């Protein structure tokens, strides 16, 4: 079942076409990697899908809902959560708060009067233990190591309990132990039936993790298929060498 459809999405910035009639589909319950040379438009795609940037033309189909406009705060409604390539944590808040803020009430009145709920704290602790940051829970986010920060990003996404995870370069700059941890989390999520869209430059990990690979170049669709097939195609290699 195709849980997410990207249909003819176009986006331009000051004359430059970041995305040009990009179209492809994401299958539910598998890990799909989106790859492509630098500047291909991968992060732009994620920004546009999550409403952080507007797009000019095209449609996203989430589940069976077609969308021509997306607002960031609708993400929980569409059961989508994301991480950021550049790690956008809430720096001067604790690790625990970074997760709690995703778990608590969205409605303003409820948020003011919501009692300090054991339910939220327990869920937060569970997530922190899962990603291995429970001991650091009272540490300020800005004091974490780089690898821990990337883990916390993932923890935040986990807290959303979405159907679709968008991971933007979750492995970049991580030490091997961290890489192992993140890989195992992703495999667990797949076991749980979750859908993962992964942007990465690490070909080895892509080959190992992905069920499906989609290649984008200059904002348009180039190729898709099984990792080993796609990544050895001549046109794909050329696209990378050209960068």
């Amino acid at each position, binding site marked *: 079942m195709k849980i997410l459809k990207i249909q003819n999405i176009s986006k331009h910035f000051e004359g430059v076409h970041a995305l040009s009639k990009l179209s492809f589909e994401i299958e539910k319950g598998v890990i799909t990697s989106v790859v492509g040379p630098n500047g291909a438009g991968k992060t732009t795609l994620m920004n546009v899908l*999550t*409403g*952080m940037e507007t797009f000019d033309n095209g449609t996203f189909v989430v589940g069976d809902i077609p969308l021509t406009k997306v607002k*960031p*705060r*609708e*993400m*929980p*409604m569409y059961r989508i*959560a*994301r991480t*950021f390539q550049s790690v*956008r*944590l*809430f*720096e*001067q*808040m604790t690790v625990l*708060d970074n997760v*709690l*803020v*995703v778990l*608590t*009430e*969205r409605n*303003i009145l*409820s*948020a*003011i*009067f*919501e009692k300090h709920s054991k339910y939220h704290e327990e869920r937060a602790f569970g997530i922190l233990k899962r990603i291995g940051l429970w001991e650091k829970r009272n540490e300020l986010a800005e004091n974490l190591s780089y690898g821990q920060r990337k883990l916390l990003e993932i923890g*935040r996404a986990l807290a*959303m309990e979405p159907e679709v995870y968008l991971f933007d370069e979750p492995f970049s700059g991580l030490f091997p132990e961290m890489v192992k941890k993140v890989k195992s989390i992703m495999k667990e999520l797949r076991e749980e039936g979750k859908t993962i869209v992964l942007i990465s430059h690490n070909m080895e990990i892509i080959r190992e993790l992905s069920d499906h690979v989609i290649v984008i170049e200059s904002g348009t669709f180039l190729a898709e298929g099984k990792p080993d097939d796609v990544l050895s195609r001549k046109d794909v290699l050329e696209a990378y060498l050209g960068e």
Partner: protein
Amino acid sequence: MEYIIHLAILTSIFAILGIGLNLVVGYTGLLSVAHAAFYGIGSYATAIFMKSFGVNFFIALLIGIIFSAIASFLIGLVLSRFKDDYYALASLGFNIIVWSIFLNWQSVTRGPLGIPAIGRPELFGFVFSENIFFLILSLIFVALVFGVSVFIGNSSFGRVLKAIREDEKAIQVFGYNTQMYKLTIFVIGAVLASVAGSLYATYITFIDPTAFNVMESVFVLSIIILGGLANLKGSVIGALFLILLPELLRFVGFPSDVAAQMRQLVYGLLLVLLMLYRPQGLMGEYKL
């Protein structure tokens, strides 16, 4: 002794102003230089309704709150489109516009002449004309304001405010309508400023536009930066410090007109030094 009571009352009023502004600036990261406008609206509403309509102080206080809430809602709507320094600039503009209204809408506010003989609060026949009783009243208000603000700050709502301060676009993508959150806290801050304004009007029993200009907003900003942004206890301490410090200077022997300027000098210097050497203020919770 009377003098100490006077200082304590002033400290209370400015502590309330500081706490309210801290929720907006310290927790949510909105650099508002408009706070004095709502302080003024509360003051003028209280003064006018008490004098011209013989309304009881506590009712006039509520009326002031309603006016401030409406004004801050409208102003907040406009301000929420701006970021960072443009926000500060626009809020500065609004402060000046409101101040200008205080100065020029003479039929209502008597302009530069101000409104004299406002009268002290009265409750079931008891008038708070003795300063010591007024102090007790003020302290009760401070406690209420502090309590409410701590409750808000520690709630889930407060946590979201901090996230907005840290990275507004990021928290949006987790499902939050940040515009509404910002607007709500701005109105809450304005309501608290209005309470301080009502107290001020009935304490000094005379108000004029000079008490609500831009420099006053800057002063409240100094209080919360000194005390420590996002630390409510700090705002009380900051108010204490900044009200007392110039009084100490007076003991050192400066003539009174120079003393007023000396006060400004101290505030300004404090802001600069804090920015240079300790942006997290006394209580050190959040760095600007």
